[in-house]
């Protein structure tokens, strides 16, 4: 099985998955939740079992002085109102007014975030992702220090990680575009977990490469890498399979509140497994052969590419 030989095929497949996601991202598919933007979220459940039309609720809110709210129906008997930050007195006022106008309702959820806090969280979030990537690169470089060019292992792992991050963000953008899902702190948690796990998987492959490289010093690099990937195929897939099975169970049987979180994790972990097997090691080979020199040149390939 020549996985490394077909590496550009697999790079292409990765791009085919990532690019649509990026398109939706550019179209504004990623909706940050109030955790990152500030504002308030109020969810009301109507005891009559019938929620009013969002348009009439928006009118009622405007009368109360709430500017620019967005109202959505949730299920058949609840509505979710998103508006600017409101304190508890305002919230009670709104709940009472809506109850008297549309029928008795109870507050099932209320959340309000000040805008300063929201933007601070957003900034920290970006920093956290960067920090995680950096920390992991450094750790891998250290762990592989006895192998020649240890730094490449770290970088290759991070590139695979970035691949997974892009897949996840793209996936969220697509879901956000079609289903209106929002990215909240849990989304960020899922993203960071995917980062940690992506490397978890990549290391299994790299480990074998390290072992083989130290042992078979005279065999060409590309051959060693391909051999290692094929040897570890079993365990790569199985380690991911167990995790994916548990996540699948959670997605199917678990409650609706964590479903978004679990689906992102599923997507990320699947991508992590794929990138570990088909991308991470291939990157090492590309680097070793310095293949970027041939990407833009037409004509015979360099002799060193062998």
């Amino acid at each position, binding site marked *: 099985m020549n996985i490394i030989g077909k590496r550009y095929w697999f790079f292409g497949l990765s791009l085919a998955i990532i690019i649509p996601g990026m398109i939706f991202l550019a179209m504004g598919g990623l909706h940050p939740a109030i955790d990152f933007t500030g504002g308030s979220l109020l969810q009301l459940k109507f005891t009559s079992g019938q929620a009013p039309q969002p348009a009439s609720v928006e009118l009622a809110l405007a009368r109360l002085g709430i500017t620019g709210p967005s109202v959505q129906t949730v299920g058949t008997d609840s509505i979710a109102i998103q508006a600017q930050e409101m304190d508890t007195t305002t919230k009670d006022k709104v709940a009472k007014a809506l109850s008297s106008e549309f029928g008795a309702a109870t507050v099932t959820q209320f959340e309000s*975030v*000040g805008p300063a806090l929201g933007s601070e969280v957003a900034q920290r979030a970006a920093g956290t992702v960067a920090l995680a990537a950096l920390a*992991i690169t450094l750790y891998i470089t250290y762990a592989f220090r006895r192998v020649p060019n240890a730094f490449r292992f770290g970088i290759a792992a991070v590139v695979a990680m970035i691949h997974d991050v892009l897949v996840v963000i793209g996936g969220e953008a697509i879901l956000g575009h079609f289903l209106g899902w929002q990215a909240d702190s849990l989304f*960020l948690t899922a993203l960071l977990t995917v980062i940690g796990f992506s490397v978890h998987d990549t290391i299994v492959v790299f480990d074998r490469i390290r072992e083989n490289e130290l042992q078979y010093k005279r065999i060409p690099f590309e051959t060693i890498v391909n051999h290692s990937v094929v040897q570890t195929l079993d365990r790569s897939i199985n380690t991911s399979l167990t995790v994916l099975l548990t996540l699948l169970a959670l997605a199917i049987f678990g409650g609706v509140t964590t479903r978004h979180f679990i689906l992102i994790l599923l997507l990320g972990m699947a991508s992590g497994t794929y990138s570990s097997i088909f991308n991470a090691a291939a990157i090492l080979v590309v680097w070793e052969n310095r293949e970027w020199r041939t990407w833009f040149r037409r004509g015979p390939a360099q002799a060193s590419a062998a």
Partner: protein
Amino acid sequence: MGQRHLRWLIVIVILLGIDLWINWPGTTSVRIGPYSQNVSLREGLDLQGGLEVLLEADVPANQAVDATSMDAVRAVIESRVNGLGVSQPVVQLSGSRRILVELPGYENPQDAVALIKQTGLLEFVDAGTTPLVAGMQVRTDVAGNGAAQATPSAEPSQSLSPSATPQSTPASTETLAAGATTGTPAAGAATAVPTPTGPVYHTVMTGADLSSVNAGADQLGKPVINFVLSAAGTKIFSDYTTSHVGQYLAIVLDDQVLSSPVVETPITNGQGQISGSFTVESANALAIQLRYGALPIPLRVAQIETVGPSLGQDSLRRSLVAGAVGMSVVALFMILYYRLPGIVADVALALYFLTALSIFRVLPVTFTLPGIAGFVLSVGMAVDANVLIFERLKEELRGGKPLRAAVEAGFSRAWLSIRDSNFSTLITCIILYWFGGAFGASLVKGFALTLAIGVLVSMFTAIIVTRTFLHLVLDRMDFSRRHSWFGI
């Protein structure tokens, strides 16, 4: 079987015993001699419903906040929260300028928030010869100094109901200027009022001089606050009232006048009563605030969230079902693919589950829905290490190594992979925990913590437990006749 393995076996059996003891259905606490530890599972806010508030120091963004003051603020808030009688409240510093307060099961967010965040600075202010209107904002000279000195000037009577005991209330003319309006201290902090201009009044004494405070009722049944002064306070008060009979002494809370009674007679016994337009709840709330002191740094609400419990319980049930299904599937997979070692791995997995659960009970770790998801995820990852070891084992056996040597080789070669891959997960958990901590995002923290504990415990069970049991079972086995038991 080697000595080493026997020793580990004993450790494992003891661990199992402890796990069963802690997790036995119906156990809510365990006792060792005089020490007792509550081990019931804690439910987070998203499971039992309640209120979560993130408070921030209300000072300009570029002004530094002193750590000792924030600690003092936290302590005061914790006392106030305990005064509310909520079970298992959480009051934690979050970053350097914020405090996270969680009140599980609390029904009335509005009252709670007001109680917690209000500064609560009570002042007794010399109003001179005219009473101050209740509800008006005044400026006093208290900023910077604690209890101001009493300025002596001669006047007798005092109408601050000098009560022999805090409960009984002799008739006293309380001269409240034009009654009405916002005597309720709870609402006082909500309105943003511009800094009042006008005379600066002299503060005679502050709430720091109160030694005890209680909410009670006067003769007419109206809610009042009864207080007893400390020794120093008693002296100041008695000096002041002796020299200011006939003048007005305003009682001010957070720069807003509660009432402004006239001093009818000197009060020397250090006891008194504050009346105003209180409701029973607001009197109780104020008593709690006064009891534990004013906040050294003013606070504002940065984020607030209330959760209804019904959503949580349903999700909890489903998550538990999902977890059970997930783990069964994984256990089944291990047996099908790895046969005999797979069974050993499942035993290790069961022990892992119990041990992690015990740790969660004892630490304690509060369970949130993402936390439970993290736990289930870690079960999937726990088997990881076993997969690596067994694949290695198969390789070594195929390569012709004798069984015992193959087992050892499998473990030692796989250890490096296990260590490195689990470490990277741990690094992300640490970063997540730190990130969540800075913003009081308990869901994020909960997930990070459960995953991290899961990873650590699973490293132990996967390696030590599996290895011990494999040796226990295999060392005397003749492998050559039992290939199929290993899935080869």
